[in-house]
C-alpha cells in the first residue's frame, strides 16, 4: 500500500517535467504572451491558455499565483524556486542560472487572479491526486467559465470520485442556467435539484423572482416549476443534514455523559454506594492523561501521537488504585449507612480536589490532542464534526463493551452480580463478598479514569473538572435505573440528544434546567428509573 502510494507521489512529481519536455507549439506561443508587464496582455494570454487546456503550463500558472513567475527581455519565463534563490525554466522545468535583476515579475492583480484560478482548476482537474482534483472541482463549481465546458465534460467522463463528479455537475449546471435555451435551463435546474447543492439555492430562488412589473425573470413556466421542486429538495436535504448533525452531536454529548456516569453506575448501581468523589476520579483520570502526555513529550517525542493510547491503561490503574484505597480505607466501614457514605465520600472529594490544586496549581493544565485525534470527520454531505466529538462516541462504545465483558463474561462479574442480588446467599455459597466489594469499587473507579482520559480531550482539565459532572452523572444513573448498565447507556445518550435538540429553542442552560426538572418529575412517576429491575433484587 505504502509502496504504491510512494510510486504515485513520484509520478506526480515527475509527470509535469516529462510533459514539459514536449510542450506543444501553440502552447508555447500562448505562454509567451504571459511575458508582459501589462496585466491586460497577461489576462488575454490566460484566456488563450484556458482554451488550449495544456497541463504543461500548470507549474507556470501556479507560480504566477504565488508571485514566483518572472520573465526576461527575451520573453522567456522563469519560476523562482521556493527553497532557495535559484530559478528554473517555466515550461521545461530545467534549472537555469539567471541574474535576478534581469527579471521582471509577471503582474498579478485581482482581475488576473479571477481568470487565473479557474484556469488552474481546469488543468488540475486531471491531476492524479484526489485532493488536488477536489479543490479544482470546488473552484470550477464556484466560478465556472463557459470556455471550460469541454474540459469539464472530458473530466466528467474520466472521473471516478463521486464528490468530484457532483461538483463538476454543479459547474455545468451553473453554466447552463444562463443558457438561451429553455430546455437546457430546465435540464440544469433538474440537475441542481438532483445533486441537492445548497450553494445553488440563491440562484434557483433568483429564477423565481419577479421584476418590478410582476413579470418573472425566468420566462419559462416549466423551469420555474422545476426550480421550486429543486429548492424543496435542497431544503429537505438541509433539514436532514441539520438533523443528522444535531443527532450525532447529541450522541457525542451523551457519550461524554455516559463515560462520566458509567463508573458511577457500577459503584452506585451494583453496590448501592453513593460516591460523591466520583467526579474527582474523573479528574484524576484527566490529570493522569496530562502526566502521560508530559512524559511522552519529554522522553519520547517521536511517539507523542500514541500518548493517548498509553494513558488509557495507566489512568485505569491509577484511578482504580485510588478507588480501592478509598474502599479499603473508609467506605467498607460504612456499608450499612448509605447517607454517611455520601458525606464521607464528599469529604474525600474535597481532599482530592484540594490536593490536586496544591500539586498542579489552581489553573487548568494544557492537554493537547494528538494529531490523529484533531481535525474533523465528514459524516455526510454538509455535516462534518471534529474527530474528538466523533471519537468519543466510539470510545464510549468500547468502554461499554469492556464493562459488559467484565460483568457478564468474567468470574468477577458473576460474583459481583451474585453479591448484588443477595449478599448473604452469595456469601454462604463461598463468594468472598468483602473482596468482591473491593474489586467492584476498583473497577468502577477505573472506568471513571477511562472517562477522565476521554474528558481531557474535550473539556478543560482543572481541579474543578469533576464538580461539573457529578450532578449530571447522578441524574444519568437515577434516570437509567440503578443496577442496570444498559439503562445508563440509554439514559445518557437520550439526555445528550434531548438537550441538543432542546438547545436551539431554549439555550444550553435552560435546556439543562428543563431536563433536570423533567428527571425530577419522571422519578415521581417511575421511582426506579427507566429500566427498573424486577423481582427480589428490586426490593430495598
Amino acid at each position, binding site marked *: 500500500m505504502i509502496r504504491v502510494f510512494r510510486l504515485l507521489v513520484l509520478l506526480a512529481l515527475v509527470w509535469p517535467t516529462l510533459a514539459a519536455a514536449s510542450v506543444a507549439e501553440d502552447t508555447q506561443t500562448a505562454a509567451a504572451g504571459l511575458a508582459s508587464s501589462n496585466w491586460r496582455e497577461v489576462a488575454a494570454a490566460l484566456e488563450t491558455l484556458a482554451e488550449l487546456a495544456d497541463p504543461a503550463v500548470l507549474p507556470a500558472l501556479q507560480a504566477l499565483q504565488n508571485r514566483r513567475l518572472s520573465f526576461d527581455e527575451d520573453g522567456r519565463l522563469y519560476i523562482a524556486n521556493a527553497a532557495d534563490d535559484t530559478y528554473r525554466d517555466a515550461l521545461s522545468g530545467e534549472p537555469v542560472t539567471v541574474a535576478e535583476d534581469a527579471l521582471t515579475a509577471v503582474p498579478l492583480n485581482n482581475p488576473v487572479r479571477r481568470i487565473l484560478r479557474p484556469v488552474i482548476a481546469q488543468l488540475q482537474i486531471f491531476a492524479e491526486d484526489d485532493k488536488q482534483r477536489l479543490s479544482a472541482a470546488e473552484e470550477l463549481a464556484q466560478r465556472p467559465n463557459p470556455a471550460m465546458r469541454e474540459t469539464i465534460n472530458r473530466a466528467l467522463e474520466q472521473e471516478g470520485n463521486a464528490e468530484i463528479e457532483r461538483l463538476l455537475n454543479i459547474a455545468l449546471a451553473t453554466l447552463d442556467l444562463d443558457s438561451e435555451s429553455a430546455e437546457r435551463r430546465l435540464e440544469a435546474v433538474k440537475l441542481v435539484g438532483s445533486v441537492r447543492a445548497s450553494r445553488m439555492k440563491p440562484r434557483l430562488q433568483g429564477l423565481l423572482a419577479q421584476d418590478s412589473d410582476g413579470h418573472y425573470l425566468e420566462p419559462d413556466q416549466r423551469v420555474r416549476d422545476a426550480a421550486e421542486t429543486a429548492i424543496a429538495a435542497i431544503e429537505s436535504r438541509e433539514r436532514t443534514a441539520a438533523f443528522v448533525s444535531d443527532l450525532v452531536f447529541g450522541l457525542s454529548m451523551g457519550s461524554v455523559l455516559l463515560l462520566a456516569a458509567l463508573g458511577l453506575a457500577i459503584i452506585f448501581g451494583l453496590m448501592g454506594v453513593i460516591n460523591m468523589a466520583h467526579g474527582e476520579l474523573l479528574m484524576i483520570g484527566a490529570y493522569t492523561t496530562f502526566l502521560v502526555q508530559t512524559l511522552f513529550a519529554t522522553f519520547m517525542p517521536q511517539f507523542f501521537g500514541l500518548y493517548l493510547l498509553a494513558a488509557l491503561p495507566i489512568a485505569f490503574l491509577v484511578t482504580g488504585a485510588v478507588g480501592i484505597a478509598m474502599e479499603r480505607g473508609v467506605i467498607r466501614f460504612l456499608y450499612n449507612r448509605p*447517607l454517611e457514605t455520601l*458525606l464521607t465520600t464528599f*469529604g474525600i472529594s474535597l481532599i482530592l480536589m*484540594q490536593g490536586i490544586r496544591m500539586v498542579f496549581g489552581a489553573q487548568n493544565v494544557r492537554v493537547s490532542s494528538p494529531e490523529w485525534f484533531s481535525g474533523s470527520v465528514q459524516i455526510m454531505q454538509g455535516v462534518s464534526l471534529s474527530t474528538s466529538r466523533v471519537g468519543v462516541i466510539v470510545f464510549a462504545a468500547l468502554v461499554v463493551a469492556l464493562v459488559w465483558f467484565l460483568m457478564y463474561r468474567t468470574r468477577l462479574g458473576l460474583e459481583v452480580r451474585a453479591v448484588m442480588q443477595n449478599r448473604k446467599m452469595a456469601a454462604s455459597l463461598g463468594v468472598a463478598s468483602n473482596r468482591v466489594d473491593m474489586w467492584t469499587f476498583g473497577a468502577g473507579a477505573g472506568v471513571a479514569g477511562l472517562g477522565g482520559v476521554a474528558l481531557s480531550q474535550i473539556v478543560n482539565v482543572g481541579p474543578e473538572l469533576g464538580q461539573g459532572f457529578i*450532578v449530571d452523572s447522578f441524574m444519568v444513573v*437515577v434516570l437509567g435505573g440503578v443496577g442496570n448498565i444498559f439503562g445508563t447507556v440509554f439514559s445518557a445518550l437520550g439526555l445528550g440528544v434531548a438537550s441538543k435538540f432542546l438547545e436551539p429553542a431554549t439555550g444550553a*442552560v435552560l435546556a439543562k434546567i428543563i431536563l433536570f426538572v423533567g428527571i*425530577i418529575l419522571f*422519578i415521581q412517576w417511575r*421511582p426506579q428509573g427507566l429500566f427498573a429491575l424486577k423481582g427480589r433484587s428490586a426490593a430495598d
Partner: protein
Amino acid sequence: MRTPLVIRFLALHGRRGWIAIGLLLTLALVVVPVLNLVVPPESSFHIPTYTVTLIGRFICLAIVALAIDLIWGYTGVLSLGQGAFFALGGYVMGMHLTRASLAEGQLPNFMAYMGLTEYPWFWFGFESFWYTVLMILLVPGVLAFVFGFLAFRSRVRGVYFAIITQALTFALMLLFFRGETGLGGDTGLTGFQNLLGFDVRDAGTRMALYSASVIALALSYLLCRFVVTSKLGRVLIAVRDAETRLRFTGYDPLTYKLFVWTLSAVLCGIAGALYVPQTGVINPSEMAPAQSIEMVVWVALGGRGTLIGPLIGSGAVNVMKSWVTQNYPDLWLFFLGAIFVLVPLLMPRGIVGLFDRVKRRKAA
C-alpha cells in the same frame, strides 16, 4: 385530655434548661449590644460591629442547621438542597432591599443593561416590607411543599431523595446564574442601603439585625423542640427508624414528612432572609450543591437528632472556617474534608454523642 399549650411550652425544658436559655439570651441580647454600642472602641472589652455581624451571620446559619436536623436528624430524610431554600429566602429579602435602596422608578443597573424599562412581573410588590415577609415564608415553603409532595408521595427516599434535592438546588443555581432570569445573574443582588428607612450599613441597624437573628434562632429552637417533643415528633422518629412498619400501623408518613420538610424549608428561608442584609449580597453560588452538603456536615459534626448538636456543630465549623480561611486558606478544604471523613467513622453521633459517652462512663 389535651394539655394547655402554655404548660406544654413550659415543659419543653426542665428548670436548668430554661435558666441556660435565659442566660444565653441575656448574653446575646444584652451583653453583646452593650459591649458593642456602649463600651468605647478603645476598651479591650469592645466588640467591633464587624464581629457582631459575623456572629449574626453564624446565628442565621445555625437556624439552617436546626432545620436540617429536624428533617435529617429526626425524620431521617437527608436533603442536599437546603441551600436552595436558604438562598431563595435571601433572594426575596435581596429583592426588597434592592427596591427599597433605589428611588421610585429607578431600576438596578443589571436591569438597565438588559434594556428593561420596568421591573419584571415577579418583582411586583417587593417595595412593600410586609409583602416581602410573606414571600420569605411562601417562596421556599411552596416550592418545598410541591417538591416534597411529589417526592414523598411516590416514596422517593434515602439516597434517591438526597440526589434529587441536589439536582433541585443545582438546577436553581443554573437558573439564577442566567442573566436573563432577571435576578442579577452571577453577581446576584447587592448594593443594599435601606431597610425600613434605616441604613443597613449602620452600626445600629447591624445590631438590630443581629438581635433579630438571635431572636429568630431562639424561636426556631423552641419551635423545633416543641415539634420533636410532641406526639408528632414521635411519629417523625418512627418514620426515621421504621417507615414501613409505621405505615402498616395505620399512619400515613406522607403528611408528617411533608409537614416537617416544608417547615424546615421555611426556617431555611427565614435564615437566608436575615443573612442577606448582614452580608450585603446574595448570589447564585449560595445554591451550589457543595454549600448544601457543607450545611449537612454541621449537623453531623454536632450530633444529629439532638437540636443542641447542630447549634454546636454549625458554630464550630463556621468559626473554624473563618479562622482557617484567613490564616491558612489552602488548608481549609483539607480540614473540611477531614471532618466529613472522620465524623461518620469515629463519632457517628457527633460531639453531643461524645459528651454522652463520657458522661455514661463517669456514671458507670
